């Protein structure tokens, strides 16, 4: 029997809508889970998904994608990328897998919630495919690092990081719980589909895919491309929903949620993308700086999408534009200084040639962040290793969970607020604004410093902190990716100077 053309049956099959008789519409779609209050009931049927696909087509395409990625991995196993790539590239893989792999299962739950709670039948249908996408991403990003575990136990973090109290994991969980797991369906779609996926997974996946190919890791490049094609598809779910909200008088609500999620996504990616792009990717493989990438992919493209929808730039645009030139430099100094707290081996990325590159891309870098590196390099060159890891903790933001950093002698400052008797610290005015918009949502969470001061970490020293974070038990602590070989050029400079 000949199959019908999809167009002949699609509109019937996609619209799995019915009229409830045993429960009310409100009971079927409770506002706290479904969101979209204030929109007329009949508007949900008008949701028109921006792409059409049947289950048969979906499975066929996904099977081909999986076959492509897994076959490249198998074919290139003999290339032995682990032993042949720059060690800093291996650090990028460890950081990526530990921060991303298990989170994909969280994203699968997020899409499953869309499939149940969304009032728009067309979106519910598409969210099922989104859920399957995310499950595939979780599986493939656990399978690929697994082959490295026998060579390097830091790859254990791919599967373990999100179950640990590592500070990076605390930050990632706070972010993903806020953006993906604990908002109503409509708000989650704005945060996850529109801001996070449309705005920022491009940064992680397209940027990293190019860096992977330039670094000779075609397996990772293929893997990331494979995932990105799914992301680019299901990220579109949020846009028609945004249009519906705006057309029905809820522009301000949508704008605020995008302002919140855009900033939170950006700050997370300063760690996941900013540091690797400007410090870990081998110099000869770098094409653009993090700032240049942000300007091309976020400032230009994402802003165009906002304008097309009739939305505005976030209110903190001037802060953001300055921040892309500085925040990740502070986080690189922080992660490298407290390297024993990482599950990967950070690259310093500050050889004389790399400093020239940083100064060219970020004029003034040598006179600000570079001066801090000067002190650290002096310690390395003169064998004062005990002074290369601080003996105390950094203050940590009660929203982003990241260390509170700034440009030395220019923008470093505390932004704090006392709420119901507790002082909360923030890494920026924007983080504070997000907290104060809904303090009851965030007030109970304890960051690493709160836990340290509250007696949750014993003994209350660096050793106790490392043990609390799972360092040494899940996998070894981080140390310099290149075994400090980059210090030699400075040692030689010192010797030449007499």
């Amino acid at each position: 029997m000949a199959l019908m053309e999809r167009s002949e049956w699609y509109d019937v099959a996609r619209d799995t809508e019915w009229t409830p008789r045993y429960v009310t519409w409100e009971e079927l779609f409770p506002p706290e889970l479904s969101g979209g209050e204030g929109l007329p009931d009949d508007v949900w049927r008008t949701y028109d998904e921006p792409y059409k696909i049947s289950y048969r087509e979906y499975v066929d395409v996904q099977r081909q994608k999986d076959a492509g990625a897994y076959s490249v991995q198998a074919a290139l196993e003999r290339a032995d990328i682990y032993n042949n790539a720059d060690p800093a590239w291996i650090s990028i893989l460890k950081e990526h897998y530990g921060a991303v792999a298990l989170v994909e299962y969280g994203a699968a739950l997020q899409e499953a919630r869309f499939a149940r709670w969304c009032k728009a039948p067309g979106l519910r249908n598409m969210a099922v495919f989104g859920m399957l996408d995310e499950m595939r991403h979780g599986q493939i990003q656990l399978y690929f690092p697994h082959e490295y575990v026998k060579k390097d136990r830091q790859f254990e973090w791919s599967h373990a990081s999100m179950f640990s109290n590592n500070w990076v994991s605390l930050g990632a969980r706070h972010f993903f719980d806020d953006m993906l797991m604990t908002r109503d369906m409509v708000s989650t779609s704005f945060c996850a589909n529109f801001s996070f996926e449309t705005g920022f997974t491009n940064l992680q996946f397209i940027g990293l895919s190019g860096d992977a190919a330039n670094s000779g890791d075609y397996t990772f490049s293929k893997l990331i491309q494979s995932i990105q094609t799914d992301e680019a598809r299901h990220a579109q779910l949020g846009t028609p929903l945004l249009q519906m909200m705006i057309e029905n008088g809820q522009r301000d609500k949508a704008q605020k949620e995008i302002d919140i999620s855009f900033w939170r996504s950006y700050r997370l990616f300063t760690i996941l993308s900013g540091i690797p792009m400007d410090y870990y990717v081998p110099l000869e493989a770098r094409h653009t700086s993090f700032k240049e990438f942000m300007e091309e992919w976020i400032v230009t493209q994402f802003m165009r999408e906002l304008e097309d929808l009739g939305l505005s730039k976030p209110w903190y645009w001037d802060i953001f534009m300055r921040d892309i030139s500085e925040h990740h430099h502070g986080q690189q100094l922080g992660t490298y200084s407290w390297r024993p707290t990482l599950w990967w081996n950070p690259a310093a990325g500050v050889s004389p040639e790399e400093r020239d590159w940083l100064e060219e891309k970020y004029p003034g870098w040598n006179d600000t962040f570079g001066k801090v590196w000067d002190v650290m390099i002096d310690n390395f060159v003169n064998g004062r290793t005990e002074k290369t890891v601080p003996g105390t903790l950094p203050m940590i933001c009660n929203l982003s969970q990241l260390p509170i950093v700034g440009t030395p002698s220019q923008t470093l400052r505390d932004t704090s607020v006392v709420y119901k008797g507790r002082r909360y610290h923030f890494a920026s005015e924007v983080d504070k604004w997000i907290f104060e918009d809904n303090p009851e949502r965030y007030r109970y969470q304890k960051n690493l410093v709160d836990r340290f001061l509250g007696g949750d970490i014993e003994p209350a020293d660096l050793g106790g902190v490392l043990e609390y974070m799972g360092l040494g038990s899940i996998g070894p602590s981080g140390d310099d990716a290149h075994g400090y070989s980059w210090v030699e050029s400075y040692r030689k400079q010192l010797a030449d100077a007499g």
Partner: protein
Amino acid sequence: MATIPLAANFDGDFVLKLVPVDSENTMDDVAAAAAANSVGIHVADQPGRTLRVKKQGTDTPYARDTTVADSGLEPTECIEIYFE
């Protein structure tokens, strides 16, 4: 006598650091405690110059013999430390 954790912003550093001090410590003691986590680690030393402490957002430093208890600083409040 009580331990008071403070947030230290040492001039020239890139990150706020947690510095526990005692309520009976003077501001010179506080400056020394902050310096132990910054000078020679992330900030170059300036031998011969005196360290001063002020509360973030204020223009005038504390007198060097002011104690933490007398300063009114609350736990985790931010102080700025700089070479005079």
